[in-house]
């Protein structure tokens, strides 16, 4: 039998066709349609009026971004130590922790968020429990805090996973070297752990921020009618009473541009400094 080099990537290229077709039909075409709707009147003429409609909702945009940033920061602060601890655990410990984190994901997103409603309600479990000690009742549901909580709860694993996978690659001797050179825990964190985890932080932040800023389920279920986010607005333009796909498309475009901008800024920190860090 003679070994002949396979034609480069022929099979791979062939196998990629279904996805490429899928991308073309279900991603590129709809994107084009959103662009088209965003810049046209219902009659089909070019207009920028739709974007004036967006300006009215600047407050909602700002609130979405603010809440998402808060949720992302909380995820980072909570997830970083967890990711670090996990990365220093033994094989079994790491697998157990990963399992525990994945477990809730086997349940429906809706169901999980719905569960928080019953917990946070005025007559919910938490208030009833606090009531035993004569505390409350507190109004927790339908607040911005509840929305942030929902975001953190649902997206925290997406922060921990990339952090964990980058941190297991940090050799223990590098941390020992820092301690050896006089670094206390704070120095080790600021000068070694954080910079070396940066790629994981960036991935984690992206994976928490993007779905948070565009969510509409969490805000509708936990935020009540008073805490509409962009996602809810867009949804209303397409499915709600204020049917207006032109304005909805314009909103989506603005949101997209904003996400791209923010991601661009975040990714700027990762300017190739880490290249080849994992020797």
């Amino acid at each position: 039998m003679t070994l002949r080099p396979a034609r480069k990537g022929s099979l791979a290229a062939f196998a990629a066709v279904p996805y490429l077709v899928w991308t073309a039909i279900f991603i590129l075409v709809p994107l084009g349609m959103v662009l088209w709707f965003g810049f046209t009147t219902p009659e089909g003429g070019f207009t920028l009026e739709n974007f004036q409609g967006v300006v009215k909702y600047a407050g909602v945009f700002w609130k979405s971004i603010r809440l998402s940033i808060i949720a992302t920061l909380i995820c980072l602060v909570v997830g970083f130590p967890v990711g670090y601890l996990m990365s220093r655990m033994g094989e079994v410990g790491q697998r157990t922790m990963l399992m525990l984190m994945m477990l809730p994901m086997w349940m429906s997103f809706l169901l999980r968020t719905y569960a928080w409603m019953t917990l946070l309600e005025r007559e919910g479990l938490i208030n009833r429990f606090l009531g035993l000690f004569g505390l409350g009742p507190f109004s927790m549901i339908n607040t911005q805090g509840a929305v942030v909580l929902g975001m953190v709860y649902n997206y925290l694993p997406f922060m921990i996973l990339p952090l964990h996978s980058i941190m297991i690659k940090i050799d223990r001797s590098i941390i020992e070297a820092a301690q050896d050179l006089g670094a206390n825990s704070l120095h080790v964190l600021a000068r070694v752990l954080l910079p070396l985890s940066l790629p994981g932080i960036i991935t984690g932040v992206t994976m928490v921020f993007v779905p948070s800023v565009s969510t509409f389920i969490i805000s509708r279920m936990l935020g009540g009618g008073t805490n509409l986010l962009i996602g809810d607005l867009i949804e209303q333009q397409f499915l709600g009473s204020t049917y207006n796909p032109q304005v909805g498309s314009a909103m989506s475009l603005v949101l997209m541009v904003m996400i791209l901008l923010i991601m661009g800024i975040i990714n700027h920190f990762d300017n190739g400094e880490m290249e080849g860090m994992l020797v």
Partner: protein
Amino acid sequence: MAKLIELKNIVLSYEGDRILDNVSLSIESGQFVTLLGPSGCGKTTTLRIIGGFATPDEGDVLFEGKRINDLPPHKREVNTVFQRYALFPHLNVFDNVAFGLKIQKLPREEIRQRVLSMLEIVDLKGFEKRRVNRLSGGQQQRVAIARALVNRPKLLLLDEPLGALDLKLRRDMQLELMNIQRKTGVTFVYVTHDQEEALTMSDVVVVMKDGVIQQQGRPEDIYNEPENAFVADFIGESNIFDGVMEADCKVRLCGRTLTCLDGGFGENRPVDVVIRPEDIDLVPPSDELLTGEVTGVVFKGVHYEMAVQCGGLQWLIHSTDAHPVGEQVGLSFGPDDIHIMKRLFEGSENVLRGEVTGEDEVTFCDVSFERPGLGLPEGTPVELIIQPGDIEVVSIDHAHLTVYLESLIYKGDYNELVVWTGGRSLLIHSYLDQQVATDIGIRFDFDKIRIAPWKGGETV
């Protein structure tokens, strides 16, 4: 000279294994001390205890007379060069070296000057802006040394720092390290398993095995006067034979009584006799000398390595003159070339305690065998005497007992193995070569075990 660091009776166990067993060591200021031993001997653990990365279960660590057992690493005036350098991959050469100084919050200009002059010492001038993962192994090594030394520690710990370098570079770096040590006057504690490296570089060599210090002293003393057969075997090549000390300065070897310079072993005591291969001259045979036949010659570059069969033993001889295979030669060496050592294993046979556990059945070390006609009641303690040659080394699947091989020394016509099992050691003579510090299987020749009533004492 002042004592810089002292270890006093350090004991450290990990998951039931004793990593360090009563290690005491004292290091003086300005010395270059090397911890030498095979892997798993506890040398790196000793270093980690000094650096603060491991805490001893028992014993004290003293730094300039003060106990520092519980002082965390970042508060110790000690810096470490790690085995695989452990450079910070996100920082360039300058920032790696400046790391410790920046934490001390020294003025910028002072940091710059100290880093630059340190980079000059390690021959890395002009590399400040380089990324560390773009450097060669030798260059990374020098960054690691500069990063540690720039803090002007009183003590520098080096954990097999040259292990990843090729031979030529190793030699260069050895000389460079010695130069740096002399220039800076910093005390170095250096860990290696390479005996040549240890002998070349050190003022003091500490030989370790199984968590116990075997010998410490000047390199010349370690080489010329090894304390036991393990040290002799580990440091350089040696002829190690069984001998009997008839009286002070008289040792019996190969059927002759030879004059040596050692004494104090008592009369007719079995000992290990060590003669270095380069201390033996091959001369024409004569009656006063041990004589033998050359059985092998290998050219080694500087010298010839010859095997000589003499008195039933195989002798190793180094000489710049070759003798052809088959030639009859006399072995000439002086009394000062004979080194007498205490045996690693006391006695020449294994004495174990067993118990009668049934009719004609005896059990020891979880092994049972039958001895027809024993006629002792159940529960009687007995003494089992097993000759070292009656234990066979076999694969673990076929073994009566799995044991840990502590040492293996070639004794001229057989290997002397000391193994560890159930809290005691056994002596085995074997013709097979085995990997030291691993588990091996052994089988007993039950018919040859001598059984006697237990004479008393509670020792097992």
